[in-house]
C-alpha cells in the first residue's frame, strides 16, 4: 500500500463536466471529486511518475484522457470506467505532453478521420558515440492515432526538460528556455512532416513561466525576478499566412514596437511588477479579461488585462504552482507547493475546499538538522504526525492516504518568502496516541532572543483533535531538547536535553468548579536528573514503564522514573548514543549511535550488557509493540549504493538474534522514518486480527505500507518521482548475499566481553550527579546528619 505522493508534480486537469479533478500523483492518476475533495478512484498502470494529464474536451459525457509518464509511455484512458484503452510506447522518459489538435475547434471534416498529434518533451536518444550531450531534452511530435514511430521532426533541443505550454485554442506552442521564449505556430493540418514556424522572444532575465491568451495573440511570461511581461501581437510577421486574416495592420516600423527587444516579432511588450520573487503561475481567465499570477508569496493576483489593476487573494500560505480553470466557470483549482490543491470560487474569491496531501518536509531542515526529529507515528490508528512549514503539525492518515487535520503549534502567520525564524523541531506521540509533545525553537537574532518552547497536548476524546494543555518556556534553560518520550501507560513524559539533564513531567488532573465537571490537565515537572553533566541525547520508557533509559553521551543510564533514582549505568559505545528504544515486551534495549563510528547495539537488560552490535549508519528504528521484533533503516555508504539501487536498506531483526529476518532496499532513506502499525481496521474484518504492518516514510514523505512477515511481499519497489535515474527492478536481496559482499559490515558479536556494570549499590553516585531534586528530608534533620558524618570522620582519624 502506497501513498503520500506529491499531488503537485504536474498540473491537474478537470473533467468535462467539472465534477472530477484528475491529479497525477506518483505512478497513478488520482481522480478527486470537486464537490467533496475526496479521492474517488485512481488510474493505475504507469510504472513511473505521471508527468501530464490531458483530458479530451468535448461533451460532458466524454470521459477520456491522455497521460504521459517518465516510463516512456503515453496512455489513453476512459476514466469513467478506470481502464486503459491504448498504450503508446516511446521508450524514452516523457517530461511533458500537449495535444494541440484536441483544442482546436473541430472542423467539419468530410468523414475523414484526422490524425491526432501530440507534442512531447522527452529525453534525447543516446547517441552512438556515447558522448555526454549538452542537450538532454528534445521536443518531438508524435502521431497518436496510428503510431508507428516518432516523427523525425525535432522542434528544439534544450539542456533541461521544459514544460510545454499550449494556447487555449491550440494554435501556438511555447516553451521557455532561459532568457528566451520559443513559440511555434502549429500547422492547421498537421502531419508527421509538417514543419512549424518558430519565433523567439528575448528578455534580460530568466523566464519562469509563460501562458497564452485564449483569443488574442498575446503571450504573458513571468521571470525569476517577479516581473510579468506581456507580449502583444507576437508573430505578426512570421506567422502571417496567406489564408489567414489578421485584424491588425502589418508592422510599419521599429519605432512602434515599445518594449520589444530588437528583432523580436511582437508588436508591443509591457511589464508589470508586483511579485517580489519569481512568478510560478500565470494564467488567463477563459474570457481573456483577467490574468492570474502567483509566486512564492502565496498570493494570487488578479490583473485586469487592459488597465493593469490588481486584486488579491492573499494568505494561501504556500508558494503557488499551477492554476487550472474548469469547464464550470465558477470553479478553479490552485496547486500549492505544500502538496495541497485548493478548489476555489473565482467570483467570491474564496477557497471552498482543499485536497490535502502529506506536507513536504521542512525546507529549513538544514538550519536545525541536529535538533529536529522525525515524524511521529500513532501505531493504533495509523496516523502520522509531521511538522509543516507553517508552524503546525499535520495529521495524515496512512490508511486513507489523506490529510485529516492540522493543528497550529506556534501562533504565527506563515509567510513563504520570509526567513525561517521559528521552527517546530519535534513532535512525539504517546503509544496510545492520546498525548503529544511538540517543541518549537525561535532562532535568535545575532544571539539574542532565542526561545525554546515545549508544548504538551491532550487528545480531546469527543472531537479526536489535540488541544494544548501545557506550555513550558525554556524547559531546559537555553539548551535544546534532544528527545521526548511518553510513559506507555501513565500521564508521564520525559524530555532530555543537550544541556546535560532530563526532566520528568507528570500530568496532574484538576477538577475545578464545584458544579461543572470541568477537567483541567496540567503538566508539572516531577523530577530533574543528570549524569555527570553529560549531554543527553535520547530517552525511552520500557514497555511496562518501570524503567526509564536515558542516554548520557556514550553510556545508557537506567532510572526509576517515580523515585528518580539511578538504577544502573550500562556500557559504553564509541560515539554518542542518539536514539534509544526498548524492544517490545522483551528485555532488550536498542541503542543507535551516530558519528564517526556509528553503531547499532542491542543490550540485554537482565545482564546489563551488550548482546550484539553492528557498525551501521542507522537513520530510524522502530519496534513492534508486543513482539520482540524491530526494524531499522540503515543508510548505505556511497560506494555500494549502486549495488543496491538505493541509498538505504530496511532490516528487520529479532532482538535475540543478530541475523536479520528480512531486508528491503529503499531509496531516499535519508530523512526517512519507519514504524510498525496495527493493521488497517477497515481491512481487518475478514483477515486475522493481529496483523502488523510496517510503514516506511521516505525523505520526501512518500510512504509505503507492507506486511513484514509475509513471505511473498518481499518485493518492494520504491520508485520515486523526480528521481530521473531509472529505478526499475529493485529486486529483493537476501541478507546473506549482502553479507557476503560487504566487508564494511563489522559484526561484533561480543556477547561475553561486554562491560559489566551491575546495579550500583553506592547510592552516593546519585548524589554527586545532582539527582533527587525532590522528596528531601527537612534541613534540620539534614544538618544533624551532616554534622554526624563530619564527626565520624574525625573519630576515625583519631583512632
Amino acid at each position, binding site marked *: 500500500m502506497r501513498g503520500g505522493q506529491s499531488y503537485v508534480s504536474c498540473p491537474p486537469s478537470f473533467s468535462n463536466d467539472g465534477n472530477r479533478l484528475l491529479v497525477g500523483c506518483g505512478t497513478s492518476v488520482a481522480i478527486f471529486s470537486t464537490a467533496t475533495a475526496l479521492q474517488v478512484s485512481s488510474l493505475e498502470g504507469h510504472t513511473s511518475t505521471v508527468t501530464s494529464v490531458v483530458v479530451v474536451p468535448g461533451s460532458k459525457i466524454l470521459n477520456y484522457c491522455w497521460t504521459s509518464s517518465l516510463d516512456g509511455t503515453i496512455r489513453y484512458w476512459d476514466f469513467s470506467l478506470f481502464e486503459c484503452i491504448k498504450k503508446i510506447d516511446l521508450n524514452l522518459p516523457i517530461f511533458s505532453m500537449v495535444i494541440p489538435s484536441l483544442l482546436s475547434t473541430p472542423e467539419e471534416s468530410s468523414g475523414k478521420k484526422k490524425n491526432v498529434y501530440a507534442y512531447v518533451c522527452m529525453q534525447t536518444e543516446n547517441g552512438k558515440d556515447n558522448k555526454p550531450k549538452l542537450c538532454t531534452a528534445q521536443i518531438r511530435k508524435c502521431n497518436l492515432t496510428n503510431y508507428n514511430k516518432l516523427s523525425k521532426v525535432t522542434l528544439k533541443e534544450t539542456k533541461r526538460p521544459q514544460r510545454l505550454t499550449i494556447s487555449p485554442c491550440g494554435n501556438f506552442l511555447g516553451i521557455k528556455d532561459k532568457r528566451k521564449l520559443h513559440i511555434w505556430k502549429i500547422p492547421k493540418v498537421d502531419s508527421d512532416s509538417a514543419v512549424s514556424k518558430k519565433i523567439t522572444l528575448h528578455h534580460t532575465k530568466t523566464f519562469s513561466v509563460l501562458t497564452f491568451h485564449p483569443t488574442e495573440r498575446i503571450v504573458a511570461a513571468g521571470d525569476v525576478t517577479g516581473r510579468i511581461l506581456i507580449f502583444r501581437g507576437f508573430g505578426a510577421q512570421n506567422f502571417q499566412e496567406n489564408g489567414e486574416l489578421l485584424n491588425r495592420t502589418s508592422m510599419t516600423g521599429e519605432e512602434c514596437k515599445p518594449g520589444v527587444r530588437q528583432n523580436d516579432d511582437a508588436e508591443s511588450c509591457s511589464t508589470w511588477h508586483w511579485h517580489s520573487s519569481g512568478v510560478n503561475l500565470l494564467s488567463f481567465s477563459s474570457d481573456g479579461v483577467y490574468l492570474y499570477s502567483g509566486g512564492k508569496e502565496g498570493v494570487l493576483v488578479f490583473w485586469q488585462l487592459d488597465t493593469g489593476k490588481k486584486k488579491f487573494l492573499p494568505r494561501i500560505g504556500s508558494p503557488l504552482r499551477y492554476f487550472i480553470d474548469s469547464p464550470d466557470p465558477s470553479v478553479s483549482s490552485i496547486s500549492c507547493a505544500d502538496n495541497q490543491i485548493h478548489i476555489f470560487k473565482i467570483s467570491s474569491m474564496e477557497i471552498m475546499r482543499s485536497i490535502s496531501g502529506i506536507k513536504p518536509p521542512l525546507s529549513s531542515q538544514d538550519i536545525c538538522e541536529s535538533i529536529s526529529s522525525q515524524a511521529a507515528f500513532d501505531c493504533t490508528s495509523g496516523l502520522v504526525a509531521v511538522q509543516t512549514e507553517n508552524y503546525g503539525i499535520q495529521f495524515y492518515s496512512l490508511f486513507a492516504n489523506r490529510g485529516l487535520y492540522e493543528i497550529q503549534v506556534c501562533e504565527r*502567520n506563515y509567510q513563504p518568502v520570509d526567513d525561517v525564524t521559528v521552527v517546530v523541531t519535534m513532535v512525539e506521540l504517546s503509544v496510545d496516541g492520546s498525548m503529544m509533545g511538540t517543541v518549537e525553537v525561535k532562532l535568535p537574532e*545575532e544571539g*539574542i532572543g532565542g526561545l525554546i518552547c515545549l508544548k504538551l497536548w491532550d487528545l480531546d476524546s469527543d472531537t479526536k483533535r489535540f488541544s494544548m494543555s501545557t506550555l513550558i518556556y525554556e524547559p531546559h534553560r537555553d539548551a535544546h531538547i534532544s528527545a521526548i518520550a511518553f510513559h506507555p501507560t501513565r500521564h508521564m513524559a520525559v524530555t532530555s536535553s543537550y544541556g546535560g539533564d532530563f526532566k520528568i513531567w507528570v500530568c496532574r488532573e484538576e477538577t475545578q468548579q464545584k458544579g461543572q465537571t470541568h477537567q483541567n490537565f496540567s503538566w508539572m515537572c516531577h523530577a530533574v536528573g543528570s549524569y555527570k553533566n553529560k549531554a543527553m541525547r535520547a530517552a525511552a520508557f520500557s514497555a511496562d514503564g518501570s524503567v526509564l533509559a536515558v542516554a548520557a553521551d556514550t553510556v545508557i543510564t537506567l532510572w526509576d522514573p517515580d523515585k528518580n533514582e539511578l538504577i544502573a549505568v550500562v556500557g559504553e559505545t564509541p560515539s554518542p548514543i542518539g536514539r534509544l528504544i526498548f524492544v517490545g515486551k522483551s528485555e532488550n534495549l536498542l541503542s543507535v549511535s551516530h558519528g564517526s563510528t556509528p553503531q547499532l547495539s542491542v543490550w540485554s537488560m537482565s545482564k546489563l550488557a551488550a548482546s550484539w552490535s553492528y557498525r551501521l549508519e542507522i537513520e530510524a528504528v522502530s519496534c513492534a509493540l508486543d513482539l520482540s521484533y524491530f526494524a531499522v533503516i540503515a543508510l548505505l555508504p556511497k560506494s555500494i549504493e549502486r549495488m543496491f539501487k538505493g541509498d538505504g536498506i530496511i532490516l528487520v531483526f529479532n532482538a535475540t538474534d543478530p541475523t536479520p529476518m528480512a531486508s528491503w532496499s529503499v531509496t531516499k532513506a535519508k530523512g526517512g522514518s519507519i514504524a510498525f502499525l496495527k493493521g488497517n481496521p477497515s481491512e481487518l474484518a475478514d483477515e486475522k486480527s493481529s496483523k502488523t504492518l510496517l510503514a516506511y516514510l521516505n525523505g520526501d514523505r512518500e510512504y509505503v505500507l507492507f506486511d513484514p512477515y509475509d513471505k511473498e511481499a518481499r518485493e518492494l519497489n520504491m520508485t520515486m518521482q523526480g528521481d530521473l535515474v531509472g529505478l526499475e527492478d529493485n529486486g529483493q536481496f537476501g541478507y546473506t548475499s549482502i553479507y557476503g559482499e560487504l566487508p564494511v559490515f563489522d559484526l561484533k558479536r561480543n556477547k561475553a566481553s561486554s562491560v559489566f556494570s551491575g546495579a550500583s549499590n553506592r547510592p552516593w553516585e546519585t548524589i554527586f550527579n545532582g539527582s533527587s531534586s525532590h522528596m528531601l528530608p527537612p534541613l534540620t534533620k539534614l544538618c544533624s546528619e551532616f554534622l554526624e558524618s563530619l564527626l565520624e570522620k574525625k573519630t576515625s582519624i583519631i583512632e
Partner: protein
Amino acid sequence: MEEARIKTFPVKPKLKTKPRTQQQTPESKYWSSFKTQQIPKQFPIHSIDYSPTPPHSFVLANSTTLHIFNSKTLSETSQITFKDTVSCVSFRNDARLIAASDLSGLVQVFDFNERRRIRHLQSHTRPVRFVHYPRHDKLHLVSGGDDALVKYWDVAEAKVIHQFNGHKDYVRCGHSSPVNSDTFVTGSYDHLVKLWDVRVRDSSKSAMDINHGCPVEDVVFLPSGGMIATAGGNSVKLWDVIGGGKLLYSMESHNKTVTSICVGRIGKDSVDESNQYRIMSVGLDGYFKVFDYGSMKVTHSMRFPAPLVSLGYSPDCLTRVIGTSNGMIYASKRKVKVDENEKGIVASEGSSIWRIRPLESTEKKVLKTTDFRYFQRGQGEKPSEGDYLVMRPKKVKLTAHDKLLNKFRHGDALVCVLEGKNPGHVVAVMEELVSRKKLLRCVSDLDLEKLELLLAFLHKYCTVPKYSSLLMGLANKVIEMRADDIRASETLKKHIRNLKSTVEAEIRIQQSLQEIQGIISPLLRIAGRR
C-alpha cells in the same frame, strides 16, 4: 475549515505560570474586599471603640484628643480634647455616653452627642490604661491602671464601689461578660488574667486566674460568654472559662507582640456564613490576622507597613479600623450590594403615594407607516429558543502595536509599547521583532529620546528573571551599537549608570545565592545518602 486558515495572531506577552496553591478562599476574598484608606495622624492610636448603635460611628484615642468618625464616610465629625494623653475609650451600650481614661489617672464620662463632660472619676493615682462599660449595665464602669488596681465605679455618684487589688503589675486591659453584667476579666503585665465577680465582696479574691505566660496586652470575651481570648507576647490564646480556665488553643502565627484583638462577625450576604464569628488580631509585626476559632485556623492574613497597636470592627460588619504606632489609621470599608428586592420595595413604597393607575389600553397598537417605530420594528427582536442563530464572527481586537506590526512599522511598534506600561507587551513585541529579524535594526534607528525610553526600560526590567534572557543580551547590544550617542548625551549616560548599578546589584545577589547553594549542597548530598 478555511476560516481557520485566515487567522490573525496578536502579539501577546508570554503566559504566566499558574499558582500551584488554590487562589483565594471565599473567606479571604471577603476580608480583602475591604477597601482601605489611610487617615494620617501624628501620634500612636491607643484605643478604638465602635458605637454599639447604628450608624456605628467610631472613636479613636490619639494623644490628647478623641476623634469621632462617621463610619459611612470615614470622615472625622468632631473631637474632644483632654489635658493628658487618652489611653482608652469605651461606649455605653446605648451609645449615649462615652467613657475615656487618660494617663493622669482620670476617668471622664461624656455625653456623646453633645460632647459635654458629665462626670470626673478621680481615684487612680497612676495612669489609667483601661476603662470599660459593661455590656448590659448602664450605671457602672470598670477601670484599671498602672497602680495594679481594678476599680468598679458607680458613674452617677462618681464613686468607687469596689476595688480589686489582686494584680501585681500594670493592668492593661479588660472586658466584660456578654451574658452576665456582674463578671468581667482584666489582664495585666503580671501574665495573669483574672475573672472578677462584683458580687464577691473579698476585694483581693478573683473568681478565676488564668496564666497567659506573657504580659497580657488584650483580652476579650467571645460572644457565647463561655470563652475568652487573651493576647500577649506573640500568641493569642483561647480559654474555656466555664470549664475552669482550660487552655483550648494557642495561636502563634504573629511574629511580634500581639497588641489588640477583637471579635467580629462575617457580614456576608449569604446566609450560611453570616453568623460565624472570628477573632481578629493585630500585632507589632504589622500583620492583621483573622482566626476561625471553630476550626482553629488562621483564615486570612494581611500585612500593613507599620506596627499595629489597636483594632476596631464595626458591629454591622461594614468597616474596620486599625491604628498604628506611627499615627497612621487604616480605615477600611466594605462595599455592599444593595439588595435588589429591598431597593424595589423601597422604591415602590416611595412612589406608592404618587402612583397613578396604569392605563387600561394594554391592547397592542397596530403600527402605521406614520409612526417612526414602524420602520424600526423587528430590530430589537430577541431570538426565540428554537431559532438557529447565525453568529457574526468575533472581531479580533488589535492593539496599537499589533496594528503597527501589521503595517511593518517595526520601530513605531517598539516605541509604542515602550511608552506603555506593560513590560510583558514590550518583551512580546521584542520577541516578535527578533523573529522578523528586525530588532537590532529598530534599535539602531531609534532617535535619542526613544533610546532614552529603551534604556529606562532596560534599567528597570533587565534583571527580572522572566525577561532577563532576552533583555540582558539586548542591553549589551544596545550599548555596543549606540556607544557614540550615549557618550554624547548626559541623560543617556545617567541611564547607563543606573543600568550598571542594577546589574551590579544583581551580580551581588547571584553571588550570595551561590554561597547559599554552596552551604546547602552538602546537605542535599547527605539527603541523597539516606
